[in-house]
């Protein structure tokens, strides 16, 4: 058995690996990015703790987007896929029992959201959200349809690559993360101003789910693998006065 993470500070977030707040080509960021630098804090109980979720908070079928909005006996239209992977920390330790939430457009690239007016058709059998808890090994899985690309008002001919939004908690509020999963081989990835907010191509690679034939169900559902890494924690080898003393 792997030992659970020991209490201690989280490793400093590498802000040069993440996208900067201001990225001119992603136009909305221009007026929504702070001009002053972030104030760096050492972790306290406020940052190393975070909410805990249990099986009572969700339904076991919330991770099945092929069924969680479909009429009885019907299915959404689109490519049937499994998305699965592990949630790990930077020490490669699994993060068990953590909440993973996803949302996405349907196969047409249309979101079930009252603010989405794209011409692509809604699918009466597809909602587009799911959630699950990782198991004791940090593993999670969803079943869904592969989302379509869609246009957005940035430059006039910008199209988002197919993507699934992913939200993860971890064990402390400082690990809170929202990101986007892309699909291996999509030619729109390299053109996307949102993807290109990330400076390092190796970091972009972390967001590209790999096709996983071994996890596919023959004659039924193809599979993609997407591992998620959250911040790691120091072992408290030498205490530097987090609390009390």
């Amino acid at each position, binding site marked *: 058995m792997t030992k659970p993470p020991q209490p201690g500070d989280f490793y400093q*977030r*590498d802000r040069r690996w*993440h*996208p900067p707040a201001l990225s001119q080509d*992603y136009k*909305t960021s*221009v*007026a*929504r*990015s*702070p*001009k*002053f630098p972030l*104030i760096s*804090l050492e972790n*306290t*109980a*406020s*940052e190393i703790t*975070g*909410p*805990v979720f249990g099986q009572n*908070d969700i*339904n076991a079928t*919330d991770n099945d987007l092929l069924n*969680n*909005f479909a009429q009885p006996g019907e299915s959404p239209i689109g490519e049937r896929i499994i998305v699965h992977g592990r949630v*790990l*920390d*930077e*020490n*490669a330790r699994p993060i068990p029992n953590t909440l993973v939430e996803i*949302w996405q457009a349907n196969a047409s690239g249309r979101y*079930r*959201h009252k*603010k989405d007016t794209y011409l692509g058709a809604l699918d009466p059998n597809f*909602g587009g*959200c799911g*959630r699950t808890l990782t198991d004791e090994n940090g593993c999670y899985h969803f079943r869904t349809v592969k989302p379509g690309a869609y246009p957005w008002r940035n430059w006039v001919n910008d199209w988002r690559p197919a993507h699934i*939004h992913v939200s993860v908690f971890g064990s402390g*509020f*400082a690990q*809170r*993360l*929202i*990101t986007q999963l892309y699909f291996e081989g999509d030619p729109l990835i390299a053109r996307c101003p*949102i*993807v290109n*907010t990330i400076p390092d191509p190796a*970091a*972009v690679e*972390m*967001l590209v789910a790999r096709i996983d034939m071994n996890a596919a169900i023959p004659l039924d559902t193809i599979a993609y693998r997407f591992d*998620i*890494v959250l911040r*790691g924690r120091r072992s408290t080898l030498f205490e530097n*006065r*987090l*609390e*009390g003393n």
Partner: protein
Amino acid sequence: MRQQLEYLKETPSQTAGPYVHIGLAPGAAGFEIYGQELGWDIVGPNAKGERIRVEGVVTDGTGSPVKDVLLEAWQANADGIYAHPEHPDEVEEGFRGWGRVITNFETGEWGFDTVKPGPVMGRGGQMMAPHVNLWIVARGINVGLNTRIYFDDEAAANAADPVLNVIEWERRRATLIAKRELRDGLAVYRFDIRLQGEDETVFFDI
């Protein structure tokens, strides 16, 4: 042989985009799907302490309200204890300490009902003034922004708060202090968040 450091890199952040509600608050997106949505009840029915409401609006660098933002709150109970397994102390049954709210699509106003948290022990045995930790995501925000809500009726505790005192620009500390008013007997704290420009809210790298 050169020693290798075998750390993984953190998954890089991406914006939550305009339709974050579908995943995290589908009722607001316009459809019912889950047996229960998470984050609507921060403290539960048994929480000790003063019941309060916190309200505000998020504005961008042009002063316009941001109408597609999602905020998450994380706070201790009235005794300053977080609902977390690393803190063996018990909190009240039903107290989660975590909440999730979205803005009104027309006005940009947001708000949540909670109890006022107690002071929490900080580093080196220094007590932190009562505060609510806040995490903000939206279209145009590439990495979620962290800030803290402090309370203007805790002036003495705020003056001694080790985190507020890390902010060298004294005038900026005021951007983290919510203003109390009474509305029909209920304590309401106003906390407006300015993402950019004049009186820009202090954001933390935690």
